[in-house]
């Protein structure tokens, strides 16, 4: 999931996104990563609050949650930068903590707080379907402009899941199992989560979140077997209306 940039930082954010797009955890000793760190240090001198937030995203590349948290906390103590809030949400998702990201969105995405437009689409694409729809309606009734309408796919997903009694909390807890498998293998999912929605009665009704990974077809299948084992081990009560899987990119 891509990070959002501010004008002065777009090159650095592009660099961050390129490393993230490799789909595997980076090492701090790699040339690209050391170069990025030096650029981030310069940027932090110019814009301390957003700089710390980007350091948080840098630590995501290394798979380091505690450093990610520390850097974002430093940023939030200094100033409230909307793009930083969006990047914190994206960072939690990139590290596979979807349920935490969902609760962050529930708290910080409320329309009256003014940063919904920075988080809504990303939150909807990572399982907060019903909350994103509800907040969009609230914003509309309050006369708050959010830009383009929420993707119809997410609206349909929210409807199918609400009808089946599956909450955003259920969805993101299930996604967390996939996050756990990704962390075990030091992997990131690539691009946005593919949200498939089928709502043809008598054929198939359900929502599937597909996480694309840079693995061979056979290795990706084995990740799904591992995910299935984890779901069983943790006693996940699956609702037929929702599932999560990996596919090779």
């Amino acid at each position, binding site marked *: 999931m891509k990070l959002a940039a501010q004008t002065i930082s777009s090159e650095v954010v592009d660099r961050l996104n390129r490393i993230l797009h490799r789909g595997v955890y980076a090492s701090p000793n790699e040339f690209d990563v050391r170069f990025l760190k030096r650029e981030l240090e310069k940027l932090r001198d110019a814009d301390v609050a957003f700089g710390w937030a980007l350091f948080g995203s840098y630590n995501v590349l290394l798979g380091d949650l505690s450093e990610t948290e520390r850097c974002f906390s430093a940023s939030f103590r200094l100033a409230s930068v909307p793009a930083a809030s969006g990047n914190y949400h994206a960072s939690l998702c990139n590290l596979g903590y979807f349920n935490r990201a969902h609760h962050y969105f529930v708290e910080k995405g409320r329309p009256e707080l003014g940063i919904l437009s920075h988080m809504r689409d990303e939150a909807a694409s990572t399982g907060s379907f019903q909350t994103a729809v509800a907040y969009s309606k609230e914003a509309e009734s309050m006369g708050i402009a959010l830009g383009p309408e929420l993707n119809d796919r997410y609206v349909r997903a929210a409807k199918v899941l609400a009808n089946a009694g599956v909450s955003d909390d259920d969805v993101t807890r299930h996604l967390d199992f996939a996050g756990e498998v990704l962390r075990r293998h030091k992997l990131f999912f690539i691009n946005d989560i593919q949200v*498939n*929605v*089928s709502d*043809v*009665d*008598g*054929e*198939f*009704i*359900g929502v*599937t979140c*597909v996480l694309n990974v840079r693995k061979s*077809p*056979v290795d*990706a*299948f084995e990740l*799904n*077997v*591992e*995910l*299935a*084992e984890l*779901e*069983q081990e943790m006693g996940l009560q*699956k609702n*037929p209306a929702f*599932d*999560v*899987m990996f*596919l*090779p990119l």
Partner: protein
Amino acid sequence: MTCDSASYLDASKKIQAIAKDEATCRAAVSRAYYACYHRCRSYYAALPVLGVIVGKGVHEQLINCLGNPSPKLTTNARARSVALGKYLRQVCDARVHADYAPDEVMTSEKMNQALATSEMIFHQAAVKKGPVE
């Protein structure tokens, strides 16, 4: 059976090879799904213990059966069945899109993904001969 699941997949690949427009892409996806459906149905029927049938319609039922296998199976057999259920669900979803959502674009990428997923289903859902888990 006069037309086995592999024949459906072969037909799907032939359509994929000539697919230059959306309607043909949709046809390839649709045939691929039925190949997977029959392959998975044979796989499921060959499991030593079957699960409980839940859901409306044969497609949803098979996906749910694979996704909720009998607890009497070994951990590995259960996990493989669940993983196959996820794959079948993915191709079923593509097929519902192909056949019932003409207003939603069907790209060649989506067709290729459905075919690649189908290949993996065929690879993983081969019915084993000999000792069963």
